[in-house]
């Protein structure tokens, strides 16, 4: 199958949906003429023009609010927030407006909008350009969220998000943008709310998100040589969460390692661990292990950054602990 980058898969997904539905429009900082700060929207401005691909002022709250207004009018806006860290500037519009308006209006107003943003450290972008803030959205009723782990996933999930009648946040990953992977040329839609077992195994389950899926798969291959059989689940959707796939796997392996790039404390891995304990308490043969960011902002210097973010060695350590 042909291989394209994660960034290309994004622009392909958007282009396809824009061709299908004239209500789909894209707005954000530098998404137009530049084709996106991470080159995720190249060619769109040229194909669809400035009426449907809008470079905006540097106004994150404005961008999300504007997208909300468009969605209320029946359009299907895709709003890009250039770095996930800048979600902080739009939290009121996202949390108090977008996520609530359907509920507050007793269901009268629907909000089919997509917020594209990203997570991830690893580029020495320092504390204000490296955060992985997706876990906040697990704690925010009224909005869906997905975390694509590969070009294929990002294409399929983004297309589904655009067609979804709920607001959806798509958390891309900065370190994946230039990664290549197989993406079918034909229609590719991945349903939101379904996790995928990327590799079967019997000794221990890893549930991983975003770029950690790739790391976990590599580790699984590596440890296979030692006879350790790892099942790797790509969580894919944060909200709604596919609890069943996780529980089924844990019933089989009895051991669970959770890997997510956000700060571990208070993050999504705590929720998954607790959910598993609630629903499969008796199946656990060992404490659940969590792998994530240390409890600090992301430092700039590569030696420091490497120290605080999760990586294959840290996952390996957790796996070995779980199966001990």
């Amino acid at each position, binding site marked *: 199958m042909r291989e394209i980058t994660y960034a290309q898969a994004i622009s392909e997904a958007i282009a396809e949906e824009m061709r299908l539905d004239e209500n789909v*429009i894209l707005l954000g900082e530098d998404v137009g003429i530049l084709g996106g700060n991470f080159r995720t929207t190249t060619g769109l401005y040229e194909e669809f023009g400035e*009426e*449907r691909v809008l470079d*905006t*002022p540097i*106004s994150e*709250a*404005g961008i*999300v*609010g*504007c*997208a*909300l*207004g*468009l*969605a*209320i*009018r*029946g*359009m299907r*806006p895709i709003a890009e927030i250039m770095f996930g860290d800048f979600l902080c500037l739009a939290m*009121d*519009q996202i949390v*108090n*407006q977008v996520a609530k*308006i*359907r*509920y*507050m*209006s*007793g*269901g*009268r*107003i*629907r909000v089919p909008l997509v917020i594209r943003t990203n997570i991830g450290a690893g580029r020495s972008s320092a504390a204000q350009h490296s955060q992985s803030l997706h876990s906040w959205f697990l704690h925010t*009723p*009224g909005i*869906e969220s997905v975390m694509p782990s590969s070009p294929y996933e990002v294409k399929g999930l983004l297309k589904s998000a655009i067609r979804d*009648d*709920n607001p959806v946040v798509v958390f891309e990953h900065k370190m994946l943008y230039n990664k290549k992977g197989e993406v079918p040329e034909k229609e590719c839609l991945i349903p939101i709310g379904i996790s995928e077992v990327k590799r079967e195994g019997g000794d221990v389950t890893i549930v991983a998100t975003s770029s950690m899926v790739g790391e976990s798969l590599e580790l699984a291959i590596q440890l296979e040589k030692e006879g350790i059989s790892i099942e790797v689940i790509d969580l894919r959707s944060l*909200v*709604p969460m596919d609890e069943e796939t996780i529980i089924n796997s844990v019933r089989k392996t009895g051991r669970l390692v959770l890997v997510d790039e956000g700060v571990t404390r208070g993050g999504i891995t705590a929720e998954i661990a607790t959910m598993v304990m609630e629903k499969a308490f008796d199946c656990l043969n060992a404490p659940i292990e969590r792998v994530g960011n240390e409890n600090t902002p992301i430092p700039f210097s590569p030696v420091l950054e490497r120290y605080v973010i999760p990586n294959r060695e840290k996952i390996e350590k957790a796996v070995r602990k779980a199966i001990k």
Partner: protein
Amino acid sequence: MDNSVLIDMLKKMVTIRYFEESIYDVYTRGLMPGLAHLYIGEEAIAVGVCENLKRDDLITSTHRGHGHLIAKGGDLNKMMAEVIGKETGYCKGKGGSMHIADPDLGIIGANGIVAGSIPIAAGLGLASKIKNDGRVIVCFFGEGASNQGAFHEGINMGSLWNLPIVYVCENNLYGISVHQSRAQKIKDVAVRAKSYDIPGEVVDGNDVLAVYDAAKIAVERAKEGLGPTFIECKTYRWGGHHVGDPGTAYRAKEEVDMWKDKCPIKRFKSLLIKERVLSEPEIERLEEKVKKDVDVAVTFAKESPYPLPEEALEDIII
């Protein structure tokens, strides 16, 4: 101007007044959960502006939204039922006073976040531009909201893209307890229009015809594709910030009294009588009729059932 328009405006203003008085009454009798922010004293603004709108034009509103909603044609029964949390309310009891919406009437919703709807209005207007459907958006907010970042971001977008939006700043001099002069150095919020290169105008917000005229020009500009207009309406809220606030801790009785003398309804009534549009008895009959409508709404609301508790889990993700 057509007499029927004048009479309609008086009727709407009186409706707002009685509706709000009933809310206060319902509140003090312990029938209303939560709070509400009353619009008494500011009726001329909502009415003067909305009289220029068609049904499919849109408005965004604020925490102090009842007046805007009534002026845009909101159903009194559904509004009152929502305010007291009933199943028959606009939002089936999920929203309450601060979140009433009726998209069928172009009422995109009151909003509990000060200035929260200003960026949303940009999107509503952008949709009009893209669809080229001529629908105008009126975005209401207070002078206090003009110090929020969202105000700046939202209006900058409205102006940049030349959107069909009318920004209506209701300057009632206070944001809760804080006098305008203690929150911004400028005296006229309308000067801020310059920051966006759009026309900014100050009008007497207690003069419904002045508001009507200013809004008329603004709505026409919007329809002609000339972009937004900023209208600041000077006014005053008679009561406290909300139904539970006497509003006396931070302003002098003389100030309140002075503004009550400038009652927009009294003033408009005198004018209509003077101009022989309506006689005093006609006005009384109109008021009786309005009172009855509001009373019907109160009864409807009171007699309506509460939602079922489990409905709390509905109307969220589809």
